């Protein structure tokens, strides 16, 4: 099949970008979307042009590196599918395909389809962990965990941090991402001691990164390639609210008596 691509090209974060039209001839239906772009790029290099920069690594839908908008939908809009797993049999001869980077204030475009998602790392660094230094753990079976809770934790933990939720949200909110980590740890006994502080710190960091607010539109859940349920946002809000009620200013360093 032959396709026409319209691709966002941008030299770097400071230079304005634009859509550029490319032909993608002889596309094989068994190719993945990224393999189709590989072939287009080979042609560009041989013509002395710069190839289209896009992020990718594992190409099996788990590392979370890849992702862009295809015809306005994050990852192309196939259920539980990242662009690296999207195969060309879903396209037809003569299709025009519009490819654009994730768009959000918190995700500046670095080049072409590559955006800076380091805000996600900072959200995790603000509290998305259990504070347990190496060596201080009890036996793995010392703490039985109800299977249903463990499964719910796993559902939330499946997030790959690709950023599709932010890109597809009209508010560019990161609530699904942040909620997924808060919910993962909130379902486990290991996550309880820091549960309140975690939700306060992570939500505040999320806001500081200039992600928008969640207004329960649900686009995030619809495009999430790992099927993270929107309940995690409710769980985050619940934890944040409860923690906010009880929040007290930190006790000043106590003197004697």
């Amino acid at each position, binding site marked *: 099949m032959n396709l026409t691509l319209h691709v966002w090209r941008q030299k770097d974060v400071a230079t304005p970008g634009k859509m550029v039209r490319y032909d993608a001839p002889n596309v094989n239906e068994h190719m993945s979307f990224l393999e189709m772009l590989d072939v287009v790029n080979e042609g560009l290099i041989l013509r002395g042009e710069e190839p289209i920069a896009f992020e990718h690594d594992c190409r099996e839908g788990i590392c*979370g*590196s890849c992702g862009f908008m295809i015809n306005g939908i994050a990852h192309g809009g196939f259920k539980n599918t990242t662009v690296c797993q999207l195969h060309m049999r879903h396209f037809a001869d003569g299709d025009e395909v519009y490819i654009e980077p994730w768009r959000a204030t918190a995700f500046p475009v670095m*080049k072409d389809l*590559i955006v800076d998602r380091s805000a996600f*790392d900072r959200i*995790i660094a603000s509290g998305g962990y*259990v504070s347990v230094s*190496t060596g201080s753990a*009890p036996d793995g079976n010392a703490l039985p965990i109800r299977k249903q809770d463990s499964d719910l934790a796993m559902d939330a933990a499946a997030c790959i941090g690709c950023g599709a939720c932010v890109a597809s949200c009209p508010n560019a909110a990161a609530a699904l991402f942040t909620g997924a980590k808060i919910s993962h740890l909130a379902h486990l006994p290991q996550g309880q001691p820091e549960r309140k502080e975690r939700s306060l710190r992570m939500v505040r960091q999320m806001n500081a990164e200039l992600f928008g607010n969640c207004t329960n539109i649900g686009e995030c859940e619809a495009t999430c390639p790992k099927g993270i349920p929107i309940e995690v946002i409710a769980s985050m809000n619940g934890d944040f609210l409860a923690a906010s009620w009880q929040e007290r200013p930190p006790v000043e360093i106590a003197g004697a008596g």
Partner: protein
Amino acid sequence: MNLNARIPSGPIEQRWDKARFDLKLVNPANKRKYNVIVVGSGLAGGSAAATLGELGYNVKCFCFQDSPRRAHSIAAQGGINAAKNYQNDGDSVYRLFYDTVKGGDFRARESNVYRLAQVSVSIIDQCVAQGVPFAREYGGLLSNRSFGGAQVSRTFYARGQTGQQLLLGAYQALERQIDAGKVKMLPRTEMLDLIVIDGKARGIVARNLVTGRIDVHMADAVVLATGGYGNVFYLSTNAKGSNTTAIWRAYKRGAAFGNPCYTQIHPTCIPQSGDYQSKLTLMSESLRNDGRIWVPLKKGDTRSADQIPESERDYYLERMYPSFGNLSPRDIASRAAKRVCDEGRGVGPTGLGVYLDFSDAIRRLGQKTIAERYGNLFEIYERITGEDPYTVPMRIYPAVHYTMGGLWVDYHLMSTIPGLFVLGEANFSDHGANRLGASALMQGLSDGYFVIPYTLGNYLASEKFAKVDESHPEAVAALAQTQSLTKQLLAIKGKRTVSSFHRELGKLMWDFCGMARNAQGLEQAAGKIAGLREEFWKNVNVAGEAGDLNQSLESAGRVADFLELGELMCHDARVREESCGGHFREEYQTPDGEAQRNDEQFAHVAAWEYQGPNQKPVRHQEELQFEYVKPVQRSYK
């Protein structure tokens, strides 16, 4: 070259304890005076950087991805081994040790493997405490599954995403240290050279992949945890970015390269579908717990799987290896698949495929149970092939998956360059000539969480460090050399793309240094690779500029290194005149086609020493002692 492995004396059960007592300690107040560089943020690097940060060292951690959470450990599906014996089925530290030495075809160092088995139990505890959501039974306790090469259930798993969950555990621990200011993370930064001063590793040269700026970073010790080099084959199950550059450039600075030819070909991958293919996708070995592998009895049988009656199917692994059956180790299962396909009994459009059939298991356990165990793997398969494995058997074929070879390290995980430590898949140490399933995650975390914190401290406490900074002549020279290499790549402006060279190299490697090798083919391939390398430096076309985010340039540097490594792998495979584990030399096989080791001449590690550009490297040997597990012909029959 000094290949002293520094193995502690005494009974094997006590060696690690003894070492931990003998190893010098760094006073808690002094730890912050030491700077440590960790390159790589996967299970080994991420866990090492986090743990060293917790201890109080100043750590700089580098990765080429946009975030440490993306390292390729994330793609590991099946699980992680640990000798917990929670199933009461006869497991023990000694049995895990025994299975790993035997599985490695008696080419691993016993003491390292024993330590790995010992610390495996602490890894599970640590990960559970971090909140890794391992699979559980209804009683709330941890669940196990079995894996190839073992007759006990000792594999812990988190659906088909075990690597992801373990990596996120390490990543979260790392982010905690970043927040605490103990680890400075440099993502999108690629190591391009090692700085050696007065014989010690003292820093690295690294390129910022966004701005193109190349800088020197100095430290008191350097830890490489940069993964394997399976992408030398172009098509492999590795992530596209996985590369050999960090360890290769360390090799060129004097670190010995151990057993480069040991490559693991994983039996269960989705077969290649066309020339445009950019990578191969693994289907976890855990599928072999419930899937049965078969091909038609008759050659050239083109009927669809459901039209072939039971009596005309050959469940060849169950037939050839009745006691291990479909759970035979990877090297054995891969070679068996190659053999039946070479006989003309392969399935699928290319004839390079065998069936992995779940219909019996679905009948026995129900689709729901199978979906619970392997749901996401079935989804991956369906997405790639467009076929539904609940109704049509999967088609699988072996593919390059893991490299057991890597930089030579001693018991302390230190290379032949003092102060250069190598962890995880990047080193050669624990898997011998074949790695058992679910052992890579175990090794990465063992090295990072539980070994390096002790051995690195010992090194720092034992040595005196001269004050050096970026202006040291060695650092300035390494920086200039890296900058000129970058300029050179961009200046060639030839007629072929980087990936066309990479594909050609990969095909040579797969044809001549893949699942079956012979002397003539290996010599031929080494010569062709040298020729290809020469052409690369005259005719490659690298697009873009040096001072920019430039993916062509990144990949050109990596392929340039693969073009050198490939030749070394062929030499190593040529000189090792025996078959062992994943290294199968056609000239050395038993009458029934199994690998024929030669313990008299080859019970050693080959450690290669670099001699300069286009000079033949020198081969050194570390003799392996088998005091506990006596080498026998491996049998899984």
